[in-house]
């Protein structure tokens, strides 16, 4: 018997590369890389910003006095950064106050939401009892909670904290409930077959299987809670990030409003990168690593998002 082997890439099977193609190969690669696209975005943003200001000046010269330029916003942010501010409290005090409220509300929402989610996942009756109310709280805009709470509690910490709880808790409840419903039955059977004690099963099977759902819950609760908090501080606060952006609005300082909004974004990103990502990387180090491009990894892309990225790239 003769075995013939066909090797890919032998002469004739591929056309020789066109010299022109090779010349443009590197620039094309750079242009197509995700890194360039990301760097390009802020450049385009600032260009559009400046150009639209020029355009507006042509049509309506007075408006330019109100609209902030990138340099004004940058200058404002720098002044805030070095605590040179007209507001009653500096950037760090302001964010510390808001963070304290956010974390208090977040912690309460996580504890209560986990307890309720567990109860709803384990008991049909509890689920039937709480389901509609959870959905109602979920459907309510944070703005409504902020207004109610400022009417009830006036200008102290309780209103904003309660708003964080109410904005975040439905996400915790729903995620934990789904986690309980998706616990790996076959692993519980395995543990029971090997007569592993209940406490060990809870610690090594139940808790780790809930972790991905807890993380999703925590992320949602934190980001939704943060948005709720800012709104609550606008209406029912005497300080904090929401109050301060309102302060710049009242002072007719558009660059202050835009700059403070940028601080909100930076704050959220820092929290995600410095808190959630390291914890989740550690908690989920057992997950098989995906072979992503090095450039993608250089951005510290979170591996939990790989599914979406993959489909985005291929789809």
């Amino acid at each position: 018997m003769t075995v013939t082997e066909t090797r890919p890439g032998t002469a004739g099977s591929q056309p020789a590369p066109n010299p022109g193609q090779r010349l443009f190969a590197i620039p094309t690669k750079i242009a197509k890389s995700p890194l360039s696209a990301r760097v390009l975005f802020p450049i385009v943003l600032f260009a559009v910003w400046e150009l639209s200001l020029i355009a507006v000046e042509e049509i309506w010269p007075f408006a330019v006095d109100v609209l902030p330029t990138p340099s004004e916003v940058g200058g404002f942010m720098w002044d805030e950064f070095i605590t040179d501010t007209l507001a009653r409290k500096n950037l760090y005090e302001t964010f510390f106050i808001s963070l304290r409220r956010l974390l208090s509300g977040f912690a309460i929402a996580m504890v209560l939401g986990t307890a309720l989610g567990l109860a709803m996942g384990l008991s049909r009756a509890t689920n039937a009892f709480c389901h509609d109310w959870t959905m109602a709280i979920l459907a309510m805009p944070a703005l409504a909670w902020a207004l109610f709470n400022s009417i009830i509690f006036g200008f102290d910490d309780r209103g904003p904290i309660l708003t964080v709880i109410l904005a975040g808790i439905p996400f915790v409840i729903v995620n934990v409930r789904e986690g309980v419903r998706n616990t790996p039955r076959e692993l519980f059977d395995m543990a029971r077959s090997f007569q592993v004690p209940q406490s060990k099963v809870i610690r090594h099977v139940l808790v780790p299987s809930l972790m991905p759902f807890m993380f999703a819950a925590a992320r949602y609760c934190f980001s939704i809670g943060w948005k709720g908090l800012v709104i609550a501080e606008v209406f029912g606060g005497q300080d904090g990030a929401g109050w301060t952006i309102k302060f710049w609005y009242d002072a007719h300082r558009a660059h202050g409003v835009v700059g403070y909004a940028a601080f909100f974004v930076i704050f959220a990103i820092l929290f995600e990168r410095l808190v959630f990502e390291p914890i989740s990387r550690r908690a989920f180090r057992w997950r098989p690593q995906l072979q992503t491009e090095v450039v993608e990894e250089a951005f510290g892309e979170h591996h939990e998002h790989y599914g979406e990225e993959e489909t985005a790239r291929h789809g």
Partner: protein
Amino acid sequence: MAEIRIKNLHKEFGVGDDKVVALEDVNLDISGHSFVSIVGPSGCGKSTLLNILTGIETPTNGTVEITSDGHVAAPGYVFQAARLLPWRTVTDNLLFVQEDRSEGTKERCQRYLEMVQLGDKGDKFPGELSGGMQQRVGIARAFSIEPDVLFMDEPFSHLDAITARALRRELHHMWDETKKMVVFVTHDVGEAVELSNRILVFAKGGRLEDDIQIDLPFPRDPADDEVAVAKAHVLRKFEELDLLAS
């Protein structure tokens, strides 16, 4: 010596018109260093029998006694899927089913990992291993608690033919070395003939139809004439019972 005594075992599911008989009046004794395969078509009650033996289900009637030298025997399990904790390393998966984490226990776990050729993979997570390696970990886990009886539910059915064959050889060595009793459920007659010294054939309706002794020397090569003859013999029994068609 481990011993399994099954007397007048009867199992039904459902009530009234929906009643299904899964096992009908099964009487059986298994003892010592046996490798017993339970074969039969789907719905013949072989999984139900295993579930009753492992305590996941209770019989409707009859008794099952699993003893070892007069005591209740300690069982070990290998499942169809490896059923490993994905968030624990290979070594921690073995330690999870142990009573303690003493040095002696850790050494024993390591010894069984080496027996399945995974001595250097203790720090890996299951997701980093192939399906065959994961099933090996499952086998090492079952042996590592040093049970009196090992119950295996189609442990190789999810694997490719070559991996399954390698694992069958390893399993045979471990059975031979540890002198344990193995109760092995499979739908693969060839696999049963290659591994067992006794084959129990179940028919639809949960009747124990035949009890075949296979007294060929080990290791058994499926290409060997005697092994092929034995396999043909069991398959003929199947045909006689008109099981193959169903």
